């Protein structure tokens, strides 16, 4: 069956059908993104923390804006070329548009990866430290672990009680487990099945094991993609995700962070912030110099009329210190307690790699919250990821449609170029809409 009104106008609307269709679709898209922009307004006005402004790399945001503008021009040129019968030009413009879409997504991917690898740590006095994990980030170490309670018929029957040994640092040859009767137990599939049968016979759901030698555990959160093996822990016990529980002694509970930013906007007494306890007097002196300079500049512009501490602009520039230099010194400063930072790189290597940031060991008692820059971190990143990922999906969808036109619509192009031009116009309308959304996203998320 021939689809009606693909080229000629329908009498009642005065338009070919697909155009009416795509505008109805775009109207619903306006509502979709409109709802998210409305959420942005609510989240920003209601934020009970300092809304991050200018924290993303504006350079790459700007490059992506230019990429999308260029692609908007090329797609409209592709349509115009086709209308004028210049098929080769049409193909070239369409191809450039698709390349722009791929370029946009490539840049977006790099930006996202950077967020996943960047961490923020809120300290108990309100100070915020940001930075990267060196080889390891958060590390928990247990010693004298001797007693194990293995859940064999728990809530999660699929969990394997062997998993808890993943982070045991005692060599495998030295691990020996005895059951309640003093019989040696081997924790392989057969051994576990025997334990299950035994527990079932005794109408128990768990079994207690003792290790002949105290074991050591070292659990760390390192690079992106690492799944935590533990559910929770206290000073004398670990609860593993496979439902195994142990006793033990917590000997290390701290984070190593290469600090690149110290934000004391929410700290009651900025000069006594924990940031300087960790980063040392050199950074504190830098901070005081920066703050006083910005205070003087503020006074110069506004006199005594305005309170600088009510100006987001002053706070953003005067109370947030970019921490550079002293990679070696600060690591030494925080070292004495609990073994300190075991940095594998020397100061010179840090400087050479362009990451001259002090590596500090932050104790658990000083931390209220930490996360990488994912939606969990704060509502800014939540709405950032919601908006940009939805927008990214639109870019991908648009690229797929345009690629279909380029690679699979050759037959229609030869048979009915006018129909093909209408298809490109509809695809182009969608593409312009994607650009239009980005025109608002870029300043809202990157600049303002």
């Amino acid at each position: 069956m021939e689809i009606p009104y693909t080229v000629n106008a329908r009498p009642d609307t005065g338009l070919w059908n697909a155009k009416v269709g795509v505008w109805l679709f775009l109207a619903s898209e306006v509502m979709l993104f409109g709802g998210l922009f409305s959420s942005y307004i609510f989240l920003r006005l209601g934020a009970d923390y300092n809304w991050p402004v200018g924290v993303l790399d504006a350079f790459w945001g700007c490059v992506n804006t230019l990429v999308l503008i260029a692609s908007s021009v090329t797609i409209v040129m592709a349509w115009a070329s086709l209308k004028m019968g210049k098929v080769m030009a049409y193909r070239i413009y369409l191809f450039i548009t698709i390349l722009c879409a791929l370029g946009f997504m490539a840049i977006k991917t790099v930006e996202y990866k950077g967020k996943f690898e960047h961490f923020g740590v809120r300290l108990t006095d309100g100070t915020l430290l940001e930075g990267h994990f060196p080889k390891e980030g958060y590390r928990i170490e247990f010693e004298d672990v001797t007693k194990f309670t293995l859940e064999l018929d728990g809530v999660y029957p699929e969990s394997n009680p062997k998993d808890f040994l993943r982070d045991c640092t005692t060599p495998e040859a030295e691990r020996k487990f005895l059951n309640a009767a003093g019989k040696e137990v081997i924790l392989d599939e057969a051994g576990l099945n025997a334990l299950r049968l035994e527990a079932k016979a005794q109408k128990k759901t768990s079994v207690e094991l003792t290790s002949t030698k105290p074991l050591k555990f070292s659990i760390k959160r390192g690079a992106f993609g690492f799944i935590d093996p533990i559910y929770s822990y206290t000073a004398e016990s670990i609860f593993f995700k496979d439902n195994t529980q142990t006793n033990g002694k917590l000997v290390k509970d701290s984070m190593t962070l290469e600090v690149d930013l110290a934000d004391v906007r929410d700290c009651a007494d900025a000069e006594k912030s924990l940031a300087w306890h960790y980063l040392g007097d050199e950074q504190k002196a830098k901070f005081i110099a920066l703050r006083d300079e910005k205070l003087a500049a503020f006074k110069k512009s506004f006199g005594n009329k305005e309170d600088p501490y009510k100006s987001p602009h002053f706070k953003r520039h005067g109370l947030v210190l970019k921490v550079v230099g002293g990679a070696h010194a600060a690591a030494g400063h925080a070292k004495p307690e609990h073994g300190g930072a075991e940095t594998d790189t020397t100061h010179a290597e840090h400087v050479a790699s362009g990451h001259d940031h002090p590596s500090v060991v932050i104790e658990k008692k000083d931390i209220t919250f930490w996360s990488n820059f994912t939606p969990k971190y704060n509502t800014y990143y939540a709405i950032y990821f919601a908006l940009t990922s939805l927008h990214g999906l639109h870019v991908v969808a648009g690229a797929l449609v345009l690629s279909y036109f380029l690679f699979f619509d050759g037959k229609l192009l030869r048979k009915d170029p006018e129909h093909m031009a209408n298809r490109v116009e509809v695809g182009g309308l969608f593409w312009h809409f994607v650009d239009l959304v980005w025109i608002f996203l870029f300043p809202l998320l990157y600049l303002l």
Partner: protein
Amino acid sequence: MADTPEQIAKHVKKYLFIGALLIVFTFITVGMSYVELAGPDGGQTNNILFGMAVATFKALLVALIFMHLNHERKIIYKFLVFTFAFVLGMFVLFILCHDNPLVMDAFERSKSALEHAHYHHS
């Protein structure tokens, strides 16, 4: 819309010009975001208003020229009038969380006025 090849050939220059204009305004947006506009909150509100005004202008260029909304059939405008009425409604919803007629907002305003007075005396 009846775009003949001759008419379209005339549009091509316009498309390139609008593309260049969009790039210029992108740089203006980036540049102005580093400029501290005057204002009691360090210019943040004014910076946002300026940035959004430029973005709206850019969006209008895209919609009117690239998306041909400067010469479109009536039915499309009918769709869009409804869409934008609702979307604008969503954008101003936040007003409800600032001025609630059911409680006494004067209480909060008087509190912040006190704080302000306190700062000037100290």
